[in-house]
Protein backbone atom coordinates (compact mmCIF):
# COMPACT_ATOMS: atom_id res chain seq x y z
CA UNK A 1 0.00 0.00 0.00
CA UNK A 2 1.05 3.62 -0.10
CA UNK A 3 -0.22 6.89 1.30
CA UNK A 4 -0.11 10.42 -0.02
CA UNK A 5 2.97 12.52 0.61
CA UNK A 6 2.88 13.67 4.24
CA UNK A 7 0.30 11.04 5.22
CA UNK A 8 -2.73 13.38 5.10
CA UNK A 9 -5.63 11.86 7.03
CA UNK A 10 -8.79 13.03 8.79
CA UNK A 11 -8.21 14.18 12.36
CA UNK A 12 -11.67 12.99 13.46
CA UNK A 13 -13.35 9.60 13.40
CA UNK A 14 -16.83 10.69 12.38
CA UNK A 15 -16.93 11.87 8.77
CA UNK A 16 -19.82 13.22 6.79
CA UNK A 17 -20.62 12.57 3.15
CA UNK A 18 -23.11 14.02 0.71
CA UNK A 19 -24.22 12.78 -2.72
CA UNK A 20 -24.54 15.95 -4.77
CA UNK A 21 -26.17 14.39 -7.86
CA UNK A 22 -27.18 10.98 -9.22
CA UNK A 23 -26.30 8.99 -12.34
CA UNK A 24 -29.28 8.17 -14.57
CA UNK A 25 -27.84 4.65 -14.96
CA UNK A 26 -29.15 3.57 -11.54
CA UNK A 27 -32.11 4.19 -9.25
CA UNK A 28 -31.14 6.77 -6.60
CA UNK A 29 -31.78 4.23 -3.87
CA UNK A 30 -29.26 1.91 -5.52
CA UNK A 31 -26.70 4.73 -5.62
CA UNK A 32 -27.32 5.49 -1.93
CA UNK A 33 -26.91 1.82 -1.06
CA UNK A 34 -23.74 1.38 -3.12
CA UNK A 35 -22.13 4.47 -1.57
CA UNK A 36 -23.10 3.49 1.97
CA UNK A 37 -21.81 -0.05 1.45
CA UNK A 38 -18.56 1.24 -0.07
CA UNK A 39 -17.97 3.43 3.00
CA UNK A 40 -18.78 0.57 5.37
CA UNK A 41 -15.99 -1.43 3.72
CA UNK A 42 -13.56 1.01 5.38
CA UNK A 43 -15.51 1.62 8.61
CA UNK A 44 -15.57 -2.15 9.17
CA UNK A 45 -11.81 -2.25 9.72
CA UNK A 46 -11.19 1.14 11.38
CA UNK A 47 -12.78 3.32 14.12
CA UNK A 48 -14.17 5.55 11.34
CA UNK A 49 -17.91 6.24 11.04
CA UNK A 50 -19.76 7.94 8.22
CA UNK A 51 -22.91 10.02 8.37
CA UNK A 52 -24.88 10.98 5.26
CA UNK A 53 -25.90 14.62 4.86
CA UNK A 54 -28.51 15.84 2.43
CA UNK A 55 -27.56 19.52 2.48
CA UNK A 56 -24.73 21.89 3.32
CA UNK A 57 -21.07 21.04 3.54
CA UNK A 58 -19.68 17.54 4.09
CA UNK A 59 -16.21 16.05 4.31
CA UNK A 60 -16.69 13.76 1.29
CA UNK A 61 -18.74 15.33 -1.51
CA UNK A 62 -19.74 12.75 -4.12
CA UNK A 63 -20.74 13.65 -7.67
CA UNK A 64 -21.15 12.30 -11.20
CA UNK A 65 -19.82 14.31 -14.15
CA UNK A 66 -18.43 13.88 -17.67
CA UNK A 67 -15.26 15.38 -19.28
CA UNK A 68 -14.28 18.72 -17.61
CA UNK A 69 -15.99 19.23 -14.25
CA UNK A 70 -14.43 22.17 -12.43
CA UNK A 71 -11.29 20.45 -11.20
CA UNK A 72 -7.94 19.96 -12.92
CA UNK A 73 -8.50 16.40 -14.08
CA UNK A 74 -11.16 16.13 -16.81
CA UNK A 75 -12.64 12.72 -17.51
CA UNK A 76 -11.92 11.03 -20.84
CA UNK A 77 -15.20 9.61 -22.09
CA UNK A 78 -16.18 5.92 -21.88
CA UNK A 79 -13.39 3.62 -20.64
CA UNK A 80 -10.00 4.84 -19.51
CA UNK A 81 -10.37 6.80 -16.31
CA UNK A 82 -13.67 5.89 -14.56
CA UNK A 83 -13.42 7.98 -11.35
CA UNK A 84 -11.02 9.84 -9.11
CA UNK A 85 -10.95 11.17 -5.56
CA UNK A 86 -8.88 13.57 -3.49
CA UNK A 87 -6.80 13.03 -0.39
CA UNK A 88 -8.21 14.20 2.98
CA UNK A 89 -8.29 17.96 3.37
CA UNK A 90 -10.35 21.13 3.05
CA UNK A 91 -12.41 22.24 0.07
CA UNK A 92 -12.38 19.39 -2.41
CA UNK A 93 -10.16 17.29 -0.15
CA UNK A 94 -11.85 13.92 0.28
CA UNK A 95 -14.27 14.51 -2.59
CA UNK A 96 -14.99 11.68 -5.08
CA UNK A 97 -15.97 12.22 -8.73
CA UNK A 98 -17.44 9.50 -10.95
CA UNK A 99 -17.32 9.62 -14.78
CA UNK A 100 -20.87 9.86 -16.09
CA UNK A 101 -19.63 8.51 -19.44
CA UNK A 102 -19.26 5.10 -17.80
CA UNK A 103 -22.25 2.75 -17.52
CA UNK A 104 -22.72 2.48 -13.76
CA UNK A 105 -24.27 -0.78 -12.56
CA UNK A 106 -24.91 -2.76 -9.40
CA UNK A 107 -23.92 -5.99 -11.10
CA UNK A 108 -20.84 -7.55 -12.67
CA UNK A 109 -21.66 -5.96 -16.02
CA UNK A 110 -20.55 -2.47 -16.97
CA UNK A 111 -18.74 -0.56 -14.19
CA UNK A 112 -19.86 -1.59 -10.73
CA UNK A 113 -20.44 1.55 -8.66
CA UNK A 114 -19.93 -0.05 -5.24
CA UNK A 115 -16.56 -1.50 -6.27
CA UNK A 116 -15.23 1.73 -7.82
CA UNK A 117 -16.56 3.82 -4.93
CA UNK A 118 -14.83 1.59 -2.38
CA UNK A 119 -11.54 2.22 -4.20
CA UNK A 120 -12.12 5.97 -4.48
CA UNK A 121 -13.03 6.29 -0.80
CA UNK A 122 -9.65 4.70 -0.08
CA UNK A 123 -8.19 7.86 -1.62
CA UNK A 124 -10.69 10.06 0.26
CA UNK A 125 -9.34 8.56 3.49
CA UNK A 126 -5.67 8.92 2.58
CA UNK A 127 -4.57 5.81 0.67
CA UNK A 128 -2.62 6.11 -2.57
CA UNK A 129 -2.40 3.33 -5.19
CA UNK A 130 -1.13 -0.11 -4.34
CA UNK A 131 1.13 -2.31 -6.48
CA UNK A 132 -0.59 -5.44 -5.16
CA UNK A 133 -2.73 -6.63 -8.10
CA UNK A 134 -5.18 -8.17 -5.60
CA UNK A 135 -5.60 -5.01 -3.56
CA UNK A 136 -8.67 -2.81 -3.82
CA UNK A 137 -6.28 0.14 -4.16
CA UNK A 138 -4.68 -1.31 -7.29
CA UNK A 139 -5.34 1.32 -9.99
CA UNK A 140 -6.70 -0.98 -12.71
CA UNK A 141 -10.45 -1.78 -12.62
CA UNK A 142 -11.01 -5.55 -12.48
CA UNK A 143 -14.23 -7.39 -13.10
CA UNK A 144 -16.29 -7.09 -9.92
CA UNK A 145 -16.79 -10.35 -8.01
CA UNK A 146 -19.65 -9.90 -5.52
CA UNK A 147 -18.78 -13.14 -3.77
CA UNK A 148 -15.59 -11.78 -2.20
CA UNK A 149 -14.85 -8.77 -0.01
CA UNK A 150 -13.07 -6.14 -2.06
CA UNK A 151 -10.63 -5.44 0.79
CA UNK A 152 -7.36 -7.34 0.85
CA UNK A 153 -4.82 -7.49 3.63
CA UNK A 154 -2.73 -4.87 1.84
CA UNK A 155 -5.66 -2.43 1.97
CA UNK A 156 -6.34 -3.23 5.62
CA UNK A 157 -2.67 -2.73 6.49
CA UNK A 158 -2.76 0.64 4.76
CA UNK A 159 -5.94 2.02 6.28
CA UNK A 160 -5.04 0.79 9.76
CA UNK A 161 -1.64 2.41 9.40
CA UNK A 162 -3.56 5.67 9.12
CA UNK A 163 -6.51 5.16 11.51
CA UNK A 164 -5.82 2.13 13.66
CA UNK A 165 -8.10 -0.85 14.07
CA UNK A 166 -11.83 -0.99 14.43
CA UNK A 167 -12.99 -0.58 18.00
CA UNK A 168 -15.80 -3.10 17.68
CA UNK A 169 -16.63 -6.31 15.89
CA UNK A 170 -17.02 -6.42 12.15
CA UNK A 171 -20.79 -6.81 11.93
CA UNK A 172 -21.50 -3.88 14.31
CA UNK A 173 -19.55 -1.67 11.95
CA UNK A 174 -21.09 -3.10 8.80
CA UNK A 175 -24.57 -2.52 10.16
CA UNK A 176 -24.67 1.10 11.16
CA UNK A 177 -22.63 4.22 10.87
CA UNK A 178 -24.27 5.84 13.89
CA UNK A 179 -23.04 4.71 17.27
CA UNK A 180 -25.52 2.74 19.33
CA UNK A 181 -27.14 4.67 22.17
CA UNK A 182 -24.36 5.20 24.75
CA UNK A 183 -26.76 4.12 27.52
CA UNK A 184 -26.26 0.56 26.19
CA UNK A 185 -22.49 0.83 26.36
CA UNK A 186 -20.49 -0.94 29.05
CA UNK A 187 -18.71 2.09 30.43
CA UNK A 188 -20.86 3.16 33.44
CA UNK A 189 -19.25 6.59 33.28
CA UNK A 190 -21.03 7.28 29.99
CA UNK A 191 -24.15 9.41 30.45
CA UNK A 192 -27.50 7.81 29.78
CA UNK A 193 -28.96 9.73 26.83
CA UNK A 194 -32.53 8.95 27.79
CA UNK A 195 -32.16 9.07 31.54
CA UNK A 196 -34.44 11.49 33.47
CA UNK A 197 -31.44 13.08 35.15
CA UNK A 198 -29.57 14.06 31.99
CA UNK A 199 -27.96 17.48 32.24
CA UNK A 200 -25.57 19.21 29.85
CA UNK A 201 -22.45 21.33 30.27
CA UNK A 202 -22.93 23.20 27.00
CA UNK A 203 -24.99 23.10 23.80
CA UNK A 204 -24.42 24.79 20.44
CA UNK A 205 -25.42 24.66 16.82
CA UNK A 206 -22.56 23.53 14.60
CA UNK A 207 -22.71 23.70 10.82
CA UNK A 208 -26.34 22.66 10.72
CA UNK A 209 -25.99 20.14 13.53
CA UNK A 210 -26.58 20.56 17.27
CA UNK A 211 -23.82 19.54 19.67
CA UNK A 212 -24.60 18.58 23.28
CA UNK A 213 -21.57 18.51 25.59
CA UNK A 214 -21.43 16.40 28.74
CA UNK A 215 -18.22 15.74 30.70
CA UNK A 216 -15.63 14.54 28.17
CA UNK A 217 -18.13 13.54 25.47
CA UNK A 218 -20.56 15.22 23.11
CA UNK A 219 -23.52 14.13 21.05
CA UNK A 220 -23.79 15.32 17.45
CA UNK A 221 -27.36 15.56 16.28
CA UNK A 222 -28.61 16.36 12.82
CA UNK A 223 -32.13 17.71 13.35
CA UNK A 224 -33.32 15.58 10.44
CA UNK A 225 -31.70 12.38 11.67
CA UNK A 226 -33.26 10.39 14.53
CA UNK A 227 -30.18 9.09 16.28
CA UNK A 228 -27.29 11.13 17.59
CA UNK A 229 -23.65 10.31 17.24
CA UNK A 230 -21.59 10.16 20.43
CA UNK A 231 -17.92 11.13 20.52
CA UNK A 232 -15.08 12.01 22.80
CA UNK A 233 -14.40 15.75 22.60
CA UNK A 234 -10.71 15.00 22.17
CA UNK A 235 -11.44 12.70 19.20
CA UNK A 236 -12.65 15.78 17.37
CA UNK A 237 -10.39 18.47 18.86
CA UNK A 238 -7.37 16.65 20.33
CA UNK A 239 -5.93 19.82 21.91
CA UNK A 240 -9.10 20.84 23.77
CA UNK A 241 -9.47 20.05 27.48
CA UNK A 242 -11.74 17.03 28.16
CA UNK A 243 -14.87 18.97 29.08
CA UNK A 244 -16.34 22.41 28.29
CA UNK A 245 -18.27 25.07 30.26
CA UNK A 246 -19.96 26.91 27.40
CA UNK A 247 -19.93 27.17 23.63
CA UNK A 248 -21.59 29.08 20.80
CA UNK A 249 -21.42 29.26 17.02
CA UNK A 250 -21.12 32.33 14.77
CA UNK A 251 -22.48 30.75 11.58
CA UNK A 252 -21.58 33.61 9.27
CA UNK A 253 -17.91 33.19 10.25
CA UNK A 254 -18.10 29.40 10.35
CA UNK A 255 -16.59 29.70 13.83
CA UNK A 256 -17.48 28.00 17.10
CA UNK A 257 -16.22 29.40 20.42
CA UNK A 258 -15.54 26.92 23.22
CA UNK A 259 -15.01 27.96 26.87
CA UNK A 260 -13.27 26.11 29.69
CA UNK A 261 -12.35 27.91 32.92
CA UNK A 262 -11.01 31.39 32.17
CA UNK A 263 -9.90 30.45 28.64
CA UNK A 264 -11.58 30.03 25.26
CA UNK A 265 -10.74 28.50 21.88
CA UNK A 266 -12.17 29.24 18.44
CA UNK A 267 -12.60 26.27 16.09
CA UNK A 268 -13.56 25.98 12.44
CA UNK A 269 -14.78 22.44 11.79
CA UNK A 270 -12.29 20.13 13.48
CA UNK A 271 -9.49 22.73 13.34
CA UNK A 272 -8.58 24.94 16.29
CA UNK A 273 -7.73 28.39 14.86
CA UNK A 274 -4.19 29.59 15.59
CA UNK A 275 -3.58 31.86 18.60
CA UNK A 276 -5.91 30.02 20.99
CA UNK A 277 -6.60 29.55 23.84
CA UNK A 278 -7.02 33.15 24.97
CA UNK A 279 -8.22 34.50 28.35
CA UNK A 280 -11.91 35.36 28.56
CA UNK A 281 -11.20 38.93 29.76
CA UNK A 282 -9.86 39.63 26.24
CA UNK A 283 -13.51 39.47 25.16
CA UNK A 284 -14.21 42.57 27.27
CA UNK A 285 -15.46 40.78 30.39
CA UNK A 286 -14.03 41.83 33.75
CA UNK A 287 -10.91 40.05 34.92
CA UNK A 288 -12.55 38.71 38.05
CA UNK A 289 -14.79 36.45 35.99
CA UNK A 290 -13.17 32.99 36.15
CA UNK A 291 -15.66 30.97 34.12
CA UNK A 292 -18.73 31.27 31.94
CA UNK A 293 -21.79 29.09 32.57
CA UNK A 294 -23.40 29.37 29.15
CA UNK A 295 -23.34 31.49 26.01
CA UNK A 296 -25.10 31.90 22.69
CA UNK A 297 -24.89 34.17 19.66
CA UNK A 298 -28.16 35.75 18.58
CA UNK A 299 -27.68 35.92 14.82
CA UNK A 300 -30.78 38.12 14.41
CA UNK A 301 -29.31 40.84 16.67
CA UNK A 302 -25.59 40.24 16.06
CA UNK A 303 -25.18 40.01 19.83
CA UNK A 304 -23.45 37.36 21.92
CA UNK A 305 -24.87 36.61 25.39
CA UNK A 306 -22.54 35.46 28.18
CA UNK A 307 -24.31 33.97 31.21
CA UNK A 308 -22.69 33.86 34.64
CA UNK A 309 -24.83 32.77 37.62
CA UNK A 310 -28.15 34.70 37.40
CA UNK A 311 -26.73 37.53 35.24
CA UNK A 312 -25.56 38.03 31.65
CA UNK A 313 -23.47 40.40 29.58
CA UNK A 314 -23.97 41.08 25.85
CA UNK A 315 -21.33 41.77 23.22
CA UNK A 316 -22.62 43.79 20.27
CA UNK A 317 -20.80 42.66 17.12
CA UNK A 318 -21.84 45.73 15.18
CA UNK A 319 -20.69 48.37 17.68
CA UNK A 320 -17.91 46.13 19.03
CA UNK A 321 -18.99 46.92 22.58
CA UNK A 322 -19.57 44.78 25.65
CA UNK A 323 -22.28 45.74 28.19
CA UNK A 324 -20.63 47.73 31.00
CA UNK A 325 -23.02 46.26 33.59
CA UNK A 326 -24.73 42.90 33.59
CA UNK A 327 -28.48 42.39 33.43
CA UNK A 328 -30.51 39.91 35.47
CA UNK A 329 -31.55 36.83 33.52
CA UNK A 330 -35.08 36.88 34.96
CA UNK A 331 -35.60 40.48 33.80
CA UNK A 332 -34.68 39.81 30.17
CA UNK A 333 -35.98 36.23 30.00
CA UNK A 334 -39.09 36.01 32.21
CA UNK A 335 -39.56 32.45 33.42
CA UNK A 336 -35.88 31.58 33.32
CA UNK A 337 -34.50 31.70 36.85
CA UNK A 338 -31.18 30.86 38.48
CA UNK A 339 -27.99 29.48 36.98
CA UNK A 340 -28.07 28.34 33.34
CA UNK A 341 -26.10 25.23 32.36
CA UNK A 342 -26.37 25.73 28.61
CA UNK A 343 -28.26 27.68 26.00
CA UNK A 344 -28.49 27.77 22.20
CA UNK A 345 -30.56 29.42 19.53
CA UNK A 346 -32.36 27.23 17.06
CA UNK A 347 -34.50 28.75 14.34
CA UNK A 348 -36.24 31.62 16.19
CA UNK A 349 -36.25 30.18 19.68
CA UNK A 350 -33.73 30.12 22.53
CA UNK A 351 -33.36 26.84 24.45
CA UNK A 352 -32.21 27.21 28.05
CA UNK A 353 -30.97 24.17 29.99
CA UNK A 354 -31.25 24.52 33.80
CA UNK A 355 -30.47 21.25 35.55
CA UNK A 356 -32.88 18.57 34.32
CA UNK A 357 -35.22 21.11 32.68
CA UNK A 358 -35.15 22.68 29.24
CA UNK A 359 -37.08 25.90 28.52
CA UNK A 360 -38.03 26.95 25.02
CA UNK A 361 -38.12 30.77 24.99
CA UNK A 362 -39.72 32.92 22.30
CA UNK A 363 -37.74 36.22 22.13
CA UNK A 364 -40.54 37.93 20.20
CA UNK A 365 -43.24 37.08 22.75
CA UNK A 366 -40.66 37.41 25.57
CA UNK A 367 -41.90 34.31 27.33
CA UNK A 368 -41.28 30.61 27.82
CA UNK A 369 -43.34 28.73 25.23
CA UNK A 370 -42.51 25.12 26.20
CA UNK A 371 -41.05 23.25 29.17
CA UNK A 372 -39.16 20.26 27.72
CA UNK A 373 -37.09 17.36 28.98
CA UNK A 374 -33.37 17.76 28.46
CA UNK A 375 -33.34 14.68 26.18
CA UNK A 376 -36.10 16.20 24.00
CA UNK A 377 -33.70 16.34 21.00
CA UNK A 378 -32.83 12.62 21.17
CA UNK A 379 -35.03 9.77 20.10
CA UNK A 380 -36.10 8.58 23.55
Amino acid at each position, binding site marked *: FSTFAGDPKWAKQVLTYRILNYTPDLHPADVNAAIKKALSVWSSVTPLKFIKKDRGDADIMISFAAKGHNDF*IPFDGPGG*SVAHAYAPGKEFGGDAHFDEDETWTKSTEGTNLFYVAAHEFG*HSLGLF*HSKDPNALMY*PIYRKFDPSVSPLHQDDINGIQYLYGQSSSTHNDQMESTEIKDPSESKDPALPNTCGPNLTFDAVTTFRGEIMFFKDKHFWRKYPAVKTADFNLITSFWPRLPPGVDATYEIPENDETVIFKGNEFWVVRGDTILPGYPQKIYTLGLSKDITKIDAAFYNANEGKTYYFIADKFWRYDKRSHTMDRNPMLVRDAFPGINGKIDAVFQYQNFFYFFCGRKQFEFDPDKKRVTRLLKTNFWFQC
Partner: protein
Amino acid sequence: FPAGTRQNKEGGMQLIQKYLENYYGFKKDGESFIWKSDSPMTQKIKEMQEFFGLEVTGKLDSGTLDLIEKRRCGFPDVAG
Protein backbone atom coordinates in the same frame (compact mmCIF):
# COMPACT_ATOMS: atom_id res chain seq x y z
CA PHE B 1 6.54 0.23 -41.84
CA PRO B 2 3.40 -1.01 -43.72
CA ALA B 3 0.77 1.75 -43.30
CA GLY B 4 -1.43 -0.26 -40.94
CA THR B 5 1.42 -1.06 -38.59
CA ARG B 6 2.66 2.47 -38.71
CA GLN B 7 -0.79 3.82 -37.74
CA ASN B 8 -1.04 1.29 -34.92
CA LYS B 9 2.37 2.32 -33.72
CA GLU B 10 1.49 6.01 -33.77
CA GLY B 11 -1.81 5.28 -31.99
CA GLY B 12 0.05 3.32 -29.34
CA MET B 13 2.55 6.14 -29.01
CA GLN B 14 -0.20 8.67 -28.41
CA LEU B 15 -1.94 6.34 -25.95
CA ILE B 16 1.18 5.66 -23.94
CA GLN B 17 2.18 9.33 -23.94
CA LYS B 18 -1.26 10.37 -22.66
CA TYR B 19 -1.18 7.57 -20.09
CA LEU B 20 2.23 8.58 -18.80
CA GLU B 21 1.20 12.23 -18.67
CA ASN B 22 -1.96 11.40 -16.71
CA TYR B 23 -0.58 8.84 -14.27
CA TYR B 24 3.19 9.09 -14.18
CA GLY B 25 3.84 12.80 -14.29
CA PHE B 26 5.47 12.60 -17.72
CA LYS B 27 6.12 15.97 -19.32
CA LYS B 28 6.75 15.86 -23.06
CA ASP B 29 9.83 18.04 -23.68
CA GLY B 30 10.43 18.65 -27.39
CA GLU B 31 10.99 15.39 -29.21
CA SER B 32 10.89 12.45 -26.80
CA PHE B 33 12.55 9.70 -28.77
CA ILE B 34 10.98 6.55 -27.39
CA TRP B 35 13.60 4.26 -28.89
CA LYS B 36 16.54 5.91 -27.11
CA SER B 37 17.13 3.87 -23.96
CA ASP B 38 17.71 6.94 -21.79
CA SER B 39 14.85 9.07 -23.18
CA PRO B 40 12.42 10.45 -20.58
CA MET B 41 9.62 8.52 -22.22
CA THR B 42 11.52 5.24 -21.99
CA GLN B 43 12.28 5.92 -18.32
CA LYS B 44 8.62 6.56 -17.59
CA ILE B 45 7.55 3.41 -19.44
CA LYS B 46 9.99 1.44 -17.29
CA GLU B 47 8.57 3.12 -14.15
CA MET B 48 5.07 2.14 -15.15
CA GLN B 49 6.05 -1.42 -16.10
CA GLU B 50 7.77 -1.79 -12.73
CA PHE B 51 4.67 -0.48 -10.88
CA PHE B 52 2.45 -3.03 -12.62
CA GLY B 53 4.89 -5.89 -12.30
CA LEU B 54 5.36 -6.17 -16.07
CA GLU B 55 8.69 -7.07 -17.67
CA VAL B 56 10.67 -3.83 -17.50
CA THR B 57 11.71 -3.33 -21.13
CA GLY B 58 11.06 0.37 -21.67
CA LYS B 59 9.42 -0.75 -24.91
CA LEU B 60 5.82 -0.47 -26.02
CA ASP B 61 5.23 -4.24 -25.98
CA SER B 62 1.83 -5.91 -26.18
CA GLY B 63 1.53 -6.43 -22.42
CA THR B 64 2.06 -2.73 -21.85
CA LEU B 65 -0.35 -1.75 -24.61
CA ASP B 66 -3.02 -4.09 -23.23
CA LEU B 67 -2.71 -2.58 -19.78
CA ILE B 68 -3.02 1.06 -20.82
CA GLU B 69 -6.31 0.28 -22.50
CA LYS B 70 -7.95 -1.06 -19.35
CA ARG B 71 -10.39 1.01 -17.27
CA ARG B 72 -8.74 2.46 -14.18
CA CYS B 73 -8.85 5.04 -11.43
CA GLY B 74 -8.16 8.53 -12.69
CA PHE B 75 -5.73 9.27 -9.89
CA PRO B 76 -1.98 9.09 -10.69
CA ASP B 77 0.19 6.13 -9.69
CA VAL B 78 3.07 8.33 -8.65
CA ALA B 79 2.85 11.36 -6.36
CA GLY B 80 2.67 14.53 -8.43
